[in-house]
């Protein structure tokens, strides 16, 4: 008994600071926001605190908010899907085909976007995608007869910018998963008569699920809450739930509505994760 209780104390002492840190940095701001989201009015001006559900109700009564939420989810889905389609093969190629120095050099290229300012990156894309921009000229150099390519203020531009920003996450998480697959598993499969496609489908992909899942979560969650990429690259068409939330804080000073929408977004993310967890658990438990 005494050893048991001593151990508990030790665990409390060792983990306590970490939990305290988490509480201060995440829990406190979050609970402050939760508090505001249930207030009738924001913290500005002189009025008594008053409990209200009206900002949550707003989401369910105002159709355009739901549309924007749906738009954001769709955007998150498209970006994540594209990141998988590009990132997984890239990671596979890096993990299985490239060796030594080349791999380091390519890695540097992949994480390079992380080192540049996100805003600068997005503005660069506006230069690339506008009419007579880099993309337009490049395409016309190859096929002169084509009409002008103008991706300014388009959904495609938003997706391109977001995929570019978040692709490294997918490549890195998939790379880690793929890297961990023992070469002898693939040889075993081959000796049993499996061709490359079968090996990919039945050995490599299932074993890479943790990496795909981690990458998807790391991408999907921030993308559905993103605001400056949609605004800068999508212009008037770039309104999504993220831009609305941001406006509540910076433009119209409606903190409670901004908070309420944030929590609804969070709830949706948690619901999606909960729905996906049985599938993930099945795969995670084996590796």
């Amino acid at each position, binding site marked *: 008994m005494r050893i048991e209780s001593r151990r508990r104390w030790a665990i409390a002492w060792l983990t306590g600071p970490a939990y305290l840190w988490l509480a201060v940095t995440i829990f406190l701001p979050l609970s402050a926001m939760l508090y505001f989201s249930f207030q009738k009015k924001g913290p500005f001006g002189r009025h008594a605190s008053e409990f209200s559900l009206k900002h949550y109700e707003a989401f369910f009564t105002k159709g355009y908010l739901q549309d924007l939420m749906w738009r954001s989810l769709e955007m998150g889905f498209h970006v994540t899907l594209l990141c998988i389609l590009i990132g997984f093969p890239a990671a596979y190629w890096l993990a299985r085909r490239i060796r030594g120095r080349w791999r380091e050099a390519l890695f540097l290229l992949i994480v390079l976007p992380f080192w540049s300012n996100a805003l600068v990156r997005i503005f660069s894309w506006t230069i690339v995608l506008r009419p007579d921009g880099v993309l337009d000229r490049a395409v016309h150099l190859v096929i002169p007869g084509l009409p002008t390519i103008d991706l300014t203020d388009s959904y495609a531009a938003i997706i391109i910018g977001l995929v570019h920003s978040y692709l490294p996450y997918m490549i890195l998480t998939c790379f880690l998963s793929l890297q961990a697959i023992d070469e002898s598993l693939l*040889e*075993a499969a*081959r000796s*049993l008569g499996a061709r490359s496609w079968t090996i990919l489908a039945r050995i490599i992909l*299932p074993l890479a699920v943790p990496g795909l899942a981690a990458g998807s979560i790391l991408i999907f969650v921030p993308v559905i809450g993103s605001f400056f990429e949609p605004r800068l690259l999508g212009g008037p068409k770039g309104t999504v739930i993220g831009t609305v939330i941001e406006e509540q804080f910076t433009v119209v000073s409606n903190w409670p509505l901004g908070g309420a929408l944030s929590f609804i977004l969070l709830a949706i993310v948690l619901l999606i994760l909960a729905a996906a967890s049985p599938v993930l658990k099945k795969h995670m438990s*084996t590796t």
Partner: protein
Amino acid sequence: MSAVDVRNVSKRYGATTALDRVSLAFPNGSFFALLGPSGSGKTTLLRALAGFVEPDEGMILIDDQDVARIPSFRRNIGMVFQNYALFPHMSVFDNVAFGLTVRRMPRADVRQRVGEILELVRLDGLDQRKPRQLSGGQQQRVALARALVTEPRVLLLDEPLGALDKKLRQDMQGELKRIQRTVGITTIFVTHDQEEALTLSDRIAIIDEGRLIQVGEPGDVYDRPHTRFAASFLGDANFLSGPVRDSGIMVDRVGHIATTSPLPAGDATIAVRPERIRLVACDAATQDNRIEGRVAERVFSGASLTYTVHTDAGPLRVLRQNADGDVIDIGERVALVWLADHSVVVEN
């Protein structure tokens, strides 16, 4: 007829020569051991047979067919890897069934085949477990079942028992032998355990630094090693050298040591197994080879004792069965005696 025929196969990795013009025929249905020290090229040879390594030179025939252009997945070989290489995300059943489902065998047949093979390796009842829920020996059996289920032409085993403890290892050796007999499949297995090679196989090839040193039945290779390396790698040996003189050699300060094997011209080296030497009293008369010395060391290993005797030809090891429990004291003078038949001439 040979199931597998390796002809003049070489493989180089940069400056290291992993295989150096190896020629070997693996008879149909044989249990063939590839024995050699670490880095001698055993795995490389096995991987060349499996198609994972492309030889720089030479030819590999499986059933008299050149397999150079046949990729691994069509070679119809079963392979058991040193680390087992079980698919961690699949159950035992799915692991074993893999080779069959890849061949698009109907479900019912798959179930029956897998059931049969799991019974053969004595794993029935564990088919829904995941590999990490199995012991080392059980994982080994799954790997074996997975390799055998497709009824391959050849079974390749890369140190299949290397990761097991001694007791389990001996059990699995028996199992392996039983399964191989039941299935009758040509089996090539890599080991650097000489005892394992001797007990399991009906043929042994000794490999060193990528070169084939000697091939033959275990008893032949053991009794008639061709080289000093073969003599000391497969079993233990004492070596005596000197110039050749009337069907024997003259050993410095010892005298004539006779042998019945053919001798080269000039100098020769003779190997004598420690268990072939008898220890007798110094005054005992004998016609056989004889060297006197003083017992310097005695190592007890249960069923036998190993004496190190200091002689004028240097220290020699003698193995003596612990049959009646009498031991020779350290410091005692003894004579080492053995038959000319047991003096084996080896190349240096």
